[in-house]
């Protein structure tokens, strides 16, 4: 249990230990019996719906779930900030799209589904990968192009995949992942799995034609596809009101029901995803719009302040930050002390630093890896090198 783990962490000073030794058994006793107690918490804002019933505002959760939310979101936040520094140190190259501010979507979604359900997203995928069971070491190795990365260093920041826990990436072209996601849903219907697919996209991708094509087909064939628009209000540098005539993305499915959710509230996200899963299995596709925000720019090459004011960013950080919200909930319900939460954060920071150090030491891919995995092995074709000296056709 998270709290017991925190209680025994080595970061506590000797001075505090006697006191905690006195206090914590009581706390532990209290929490171990109350660990399974359900807390009912109201979401910050009510849901707005289009062509369907809104789910209830009261979300049931348990102390351990809240603590795990805190821990997971803290890990994600720390990981993204570390990736920022690594990029500036030129250890990560190319494109790096950071998810900090949006962690509640990844964490809330995971709480509502199983690893058998599929998630597919675009290039802002580091935290979604982590939520699906990826490790920090795999993340940093892949970002730095090492062979220990989740895609053997050949994918990079935009191509994280984890097949065994249903994470299908990781796609660079805006909007192309939505038809893929509907294809995943089709396969789930074909195999009669009873599982669903969450296809995530952004407010920028919401204007892609292939999205509406895929939505049409999903609605026609009653596929268990849930399209989730992570609306962080900016498509790179273009605000949503400048790109979309109708920024009510949850309504744009027209004949497909939609739900607008406060994406900074992990509990609201969890409630919405649970509702969506039940709906999709019975009635076909549904659109969820997560009202969220990213603190960084679109990617590391975008300062993020040319199209929005710093006041706006800090305002959101103060009022709607997902980690702060969970922290306040935990403290107000006495699930942990301020100190314990800080210790969790310190521990998370250490884990991230350790992972980075380990990834920095790990090897780069071998040269021959350039030609592996171009084709599925054993089915006739090998990929030949551009240097044909070695593989010139040999005649009898």
């Amino acid at each position: 249990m998270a709290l017991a783990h925190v209680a025994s962490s080595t970061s506590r000073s000797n001075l505090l230990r006697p006191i905690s030794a006195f206090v914590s058994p009581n706390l532990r006793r209290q929490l171990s019996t109350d660990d399974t107690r359900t807390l009912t918490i109201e979401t910050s804002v009510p849901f707005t719906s289009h062509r369907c019933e809104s789910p209830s505002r009261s979300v049931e959760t348990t102390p351990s779930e809240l603590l795990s939310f805190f821990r997971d979101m803290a890990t994600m936040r720390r990981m993204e900030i570390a990736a920022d520094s690594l990029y500036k140190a030129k250890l990560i190259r190319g494109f790096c799209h950071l998810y900090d501010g949006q962690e509640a979507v990844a964490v809330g979604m995971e709480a509502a589904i199983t690893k058998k359900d599929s998630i597919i997203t675009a290039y802002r995928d580091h935290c979604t990968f982590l939520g699906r069971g990826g490790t920090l070491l795999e993340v940093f190795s892949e970002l730095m192009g090492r062979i220990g990365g989740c895609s053997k260093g050949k994918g990079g920041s935009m191509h994280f995949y984890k097949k065994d826990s249903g994470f299908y990436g990781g796609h660079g072209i805006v909007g192309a992942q939505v038809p893929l996601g509907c294809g995943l849903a089709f396969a789930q219907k074909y195999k009669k799995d009873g599982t669903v697919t969450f296809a995530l996209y952004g407010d920028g991708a919401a204007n892609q034609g292939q999205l509406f094509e895929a939505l049409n087909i999903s609605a026609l064939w009653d596929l268990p596809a849930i399209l989730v628009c992570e609306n962080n209000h900016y498509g790179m540098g273009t605000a949503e009101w400048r790109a979309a005539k109708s920024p009510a993305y949850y309504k744009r499915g027209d004949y497909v029901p939609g739900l607008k959710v406060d994406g900074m509230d992990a509990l609201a996200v969890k409630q919405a995803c649970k509702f969506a899963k039940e709906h999709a299995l019975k009635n076909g596709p549904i659109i969820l719009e997560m009202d969220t925000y990213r603190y960084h720019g679109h990617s590391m090459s975008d300062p993020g302040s040319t199209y929005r004011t710093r006041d706006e960013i800090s305002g959101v950080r103060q009022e709607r930050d997902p980690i702060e919200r969970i922290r306040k909930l935990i403290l107000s319900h006495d699930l942990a002390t301020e100190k314990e939460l800080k210790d969790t954060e310190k521990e998370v920071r250490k884990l991230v630093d350790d992972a980075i150090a380990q990834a920095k030491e790990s090897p780069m891919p071998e040269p021959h890896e350039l030609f592996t995995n171009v084709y599925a092995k054993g089915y006739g074709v090998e990929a030949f090198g551009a240097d044909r000296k070695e593989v010139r056709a040999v005649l009898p």
Partner: protein
Amino acid sequence: MATIVGAATALSASKSFNSRKLHLRSRRSLSVSERKGSFLVVRSDGSVVHKAHRAQKLIANAVATKADSSAASTASKPGHELLLFEALREGLEEEMDRDPTVCVMGEDVGHYGGSYKVTKGLATKYGDLRVLDTPIAENSFTGMGIGAAMTGLRPIVEGMNMGFLLLAFNQISNNCGMLHYTSGGQFKIPIVIRGPGGVGRQLGAEHSQRLESYFQSIPGIQMVACSTPYNAKGLMKAAIRSENPVILFEHVLLYNLKERIPDEEYVCSLEEAEMVRPGEHVTILTYSRMRYHVMQAAKTLVNKGYDPEVIDIRSLKPFDLHTIGNSVKKTHRVLIVEECMRTGGIGASLTAAITENFNDYLDAPIICLSSQDVPTPYAGTLEEWTVVQPAQIVTAVEQLCQ
């Protein structure tokens, strides 16, 4: 194909690449006269059986008119006769029977039966979940096919005309071709994308496109082109069974070719070229519809005393450099006849590949005959002149062999 009769028996024993190759080698060691006699069983082009003393004229119609001689030549042989689209359907049906994860999606493939009747009857047999009628949304249904393939299904995506797949280029290039690589080998994409392309009968510029030239540099995909009912069925089955994404190029004008194919199950190799006519003087490399123009020209050439070796390359990506190389080593002269446009077509890549690898064996520069770099016009006469005609092939061979 010369060795079809022999190959039928060879293949019934084993489907491996090796047995067919062995068979080829033994054939080539036969004397010239014997060889001529045996290869004349090119049934898809029925008129080959007849004498070669026929007035040569500009032939706009490459597809053999009713195979009047086919009855005589094929009466006593085993197997069953069918048209190319039926052969494709047979291959498809056999694979769908064999593997429940195979499904077909495309426009009008289900209830309508397919615009070229390739999927006729399959919807009633397998139901709407396995033979799916899609709306006109190539980009997304190709993407959906790829997404389904990521989970282990084996979809076959049909483009009603290959030209429409330009709308799905992003999905084919980025997701279909590259996902296996960018995921570090986690996902296999066993998808087959097929459809008719090529210059038809006055269909106009947008419906006469040759997409093999655009797709050829996408890493991670395989491309094959079928030309006879025999290889159509074999390649369809091989493509479905392959774990790699395969694009199968059919040709609008070849759907009604009739041929006798074996009753036994057989699969063609996806990376192998087909030796249509062994020869000594010049290697002619071709594929799809141009194979028939080449065979027409071959008759004239034989009359004039030349002995062309005709190879149907079949595998457009990767090239079967082994068969091609062996042939170049023998004849030292290469002529490529293709339907792609001059610029950036399959012929251009093939020329480069042969020059790079077999330059020492060439006695003359490679001649590549391709279609003109123009949009295919509607007018019949203009359309004839866009595409390579047998007379041009004869002239090119004469030029090469000087």
